[in-house]
């Protein structure tokens, strides 16, 4: 329950930040990506504010605590390799982002502001994510077992 309330607060803060910074508006995002046009550098300032705040917070939290408040352990990414998957995935994501100006956070936050077009994008995005999950089951990443042993828990 505490985890759920904390996540609700975090999601709300995230959405308020996207609204205040206007990153919920795809036109604003495309204005940043359009370096050859009437360039709007706002998105760089959003990233600067977000990464500097998060960097200070991470340093304080991970330097002083061995576990989070409401969970047994920190769940941090462990992958280190800069592989084809990372680069190709980021490139595919970037092309889709540039086509419309929406990425997952602003798309969800935008549902309440322009429901019909944003919902079409969100449904397609969920289908794209589900397709990735299905592909992972058919062709697991290198090093992973082809299928989990019966009864093997995670």
């Amino acid at each position: 329950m505490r985890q759920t309330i904390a996540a609700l607060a975090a999601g709300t803060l995230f959405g308020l930040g996207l609204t205040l910074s206007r990153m919920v508006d795809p036109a604003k995002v495309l204005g940043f990506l359009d370096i050859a046009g009437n360039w709007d550098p706002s998105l760089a300032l959003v990233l600067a504010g977000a990464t500097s705040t998060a960097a200070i917070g991470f340093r304080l939290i991970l330097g002083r605590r061995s576990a989070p408040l409401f969970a047994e352990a920190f769940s941090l990414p462990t992958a280190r390799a800069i592989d084809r998957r990372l680069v190709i995935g980021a490139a595919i994501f970037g092309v889709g982002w540039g086509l419309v100006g929406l990425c997952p956070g602003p798309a969800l936050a935008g549902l309440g502001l322009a429901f019909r077009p944003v919902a079409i994008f969100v449904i397609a995005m969920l289908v794209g994510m589900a397709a990735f999950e299905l592909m992972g089951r058919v062709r697991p990443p290198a090093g992973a077992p082809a299928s989990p042993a019966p009864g093997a828990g995670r």
Partner: protein
Amino acid sequence: MENFTPVSAFFGGVLIGLSVVVLLLTNGRIAGVSGVVGGLLASKVRDAGWRLAFILGLIAAPLLYAAVAGGVPPIAVTSSTGLLIAAGLLVGFGARLGSGCTSGHGVAGIARLSPRSFVATGVFLTAGMATVFVTRHVMGG
């Protein structure tokens, strides 16, 4: 550059950074939106509660902002339905294949000084800029 809004952009970014800090401090999780959503589509979902709560907050926030501030400027989504579908498929699939999006790599990963996130962010910014260049200036859309 008359559209440049540095102050609201920076402080909006600070709120996004605080969100990332809150989720790490309380739940020990990285607030990457594609990861939070994608986790709901995995074969075994054991932690749907906090994921759905995060998404609910994200969707409700602009409406909350509008209620307090007395409104939110309208957003402009001018793309055709076909383009919205194509872009959504690419964004969803690409974010999962590349293990993150603008929030997970661009904010949380860069804040952790993760080399993977620096590479991913550089690649998707370049791909996004190249796409806009082609659609707006080469094809003249």
